[in-house]
C-alpha cells in the first residue's frame, strides 16, 4: 500500500525538507501534495485522496489548528490522521491539538528519525496495516544520507 501525503507549511524549503525526510524514512509514497496554508490544504483535500496530513501550526491565511478543526468537522476528511510538525512547543497548545483530534506532533527542530517514528505509528494505527519500508528506497541518493 502506498500513501498519499499532504504537507502544509508556508515555507517551501521546509516542505522540501519534510518530503525528503519522508522519502528517506522509506514510507511507501503514492503522491506527495504540498500546501502553503490550511486553505490550500482544504482545496487539495476536496480534490484528491489523501491518507495523512503533515501540517505546521503557524501559517498565514489559515493556520494548522483551524485546518485541524475543519478536517475533524468534515465527514469525508475526519478519517485522515493529521500530524503537526511545528515550532509550537507549549504543552498547553499540544493538549489542545490532541483534544481536537491531532494524531501526533513533532517539534521543530526535529531529527529525521522522529518523523519516521510517528509517521509509521500513525499510518499503522489508522490503516491497520503493517507499513513496510522498501529495502532500497528508490528516491534517496547517497548525498541525501547526509541529512
Amino acid at each position, binding site marked *: 500500500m502506498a500513501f498519499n501525503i499532504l504537507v502544509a507549511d*508556508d515555507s517551501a524549503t521546509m516542505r*522540501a525538507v519534510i518530503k525528503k525526510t519522508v522519502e528517506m524514512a522509506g514510507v511507501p509514497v503514492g503522491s506527495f501534495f504540498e500546501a502553503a496554508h490550511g486553505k490550500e490544504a482544504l482545496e487539495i483535500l476536496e480534490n484528491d485522496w489523501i491518507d495523512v496530513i503533515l501540517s505546521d501550526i503557524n501559517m498565514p491565511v489559515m493556520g494548522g489548528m483551524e485546518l485541524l478543526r475543519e478536517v475533524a468537522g468534515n465527514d469525508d476528511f475526519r478519517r485522515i490522521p493529521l500530524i503537526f510538525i511545528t515550532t509550537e512547543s*507549549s504543552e*498547553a497548545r499540544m493538549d489542545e491539538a490532541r483534544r481536537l483530534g491531532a494524531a501526533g506532533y513533532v517539534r*521543530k*527542530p526535529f531529527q529525521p528519525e522522529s518523523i519516521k517514528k510517528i509517521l509509521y505509528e500513525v499510518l499503522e494505527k489508522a490503516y491497520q496495516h503493517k507499513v513496510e519500508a522498501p529495502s532500497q528506497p528508490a528516491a534517496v541518493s547517497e548525498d541525501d544520507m547526509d541529512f
Partner: protein
Amino acid sequence: MDGQFRSLIFQTFGEVFETMFFTFLEPVDEVPGPEALVCDDTYIRADIVYQGPQSGRFTIYLPKRLARNVTMNFLGADEADISDEQMLDTAKEATNMAVGSLLGKIDPAGESKLNIPEATILDQFSGAEIASEPGAFLFDTDFGRLWVVFS
C-alpha cells in the same frame, strides 16, 4: 538582561542551527571593537515578533555565505542550486524555530503567540551599529558572524 536569559539564547540558537542546519555557532561573550566588525559580505535580516503576556521581537542578521551554507545543509542541495528565495526562506525558518524553541522554555504555558517571520536582503549592514544595541548577541561561524538582536 540577566545572565540566565543570555545563556538560554546562546544555547537555543546553537541547538537549532546544529540540529537542523549542521552548523556550529560559537557564542562570542566579548564583542570586538568596531574595526574588527567590518564585513564585506551582504547580510540577510530575518525578524519574528511574539505577542502575549510577554512580547518581543527577535531579529537575526546572517551573512549570505552563512545563509547559503545552512540552506545547502537544510535541503541537501548543491551550492549552484541555491536561490536567494531559498536563503530567505531558510533564514525565516531558522528564526521561527529558534524563537519558537526559546518561547517553549520561557513561556511553558504557551500564552505567547509567534507571528509569521519575515526576511529581506539588506543593501547595507553595519556590525558596529548592531553591536551598540543592548539586546545584541554575537556568534562566530565558519561562514561569517551571525547576530541575534532581542528587542
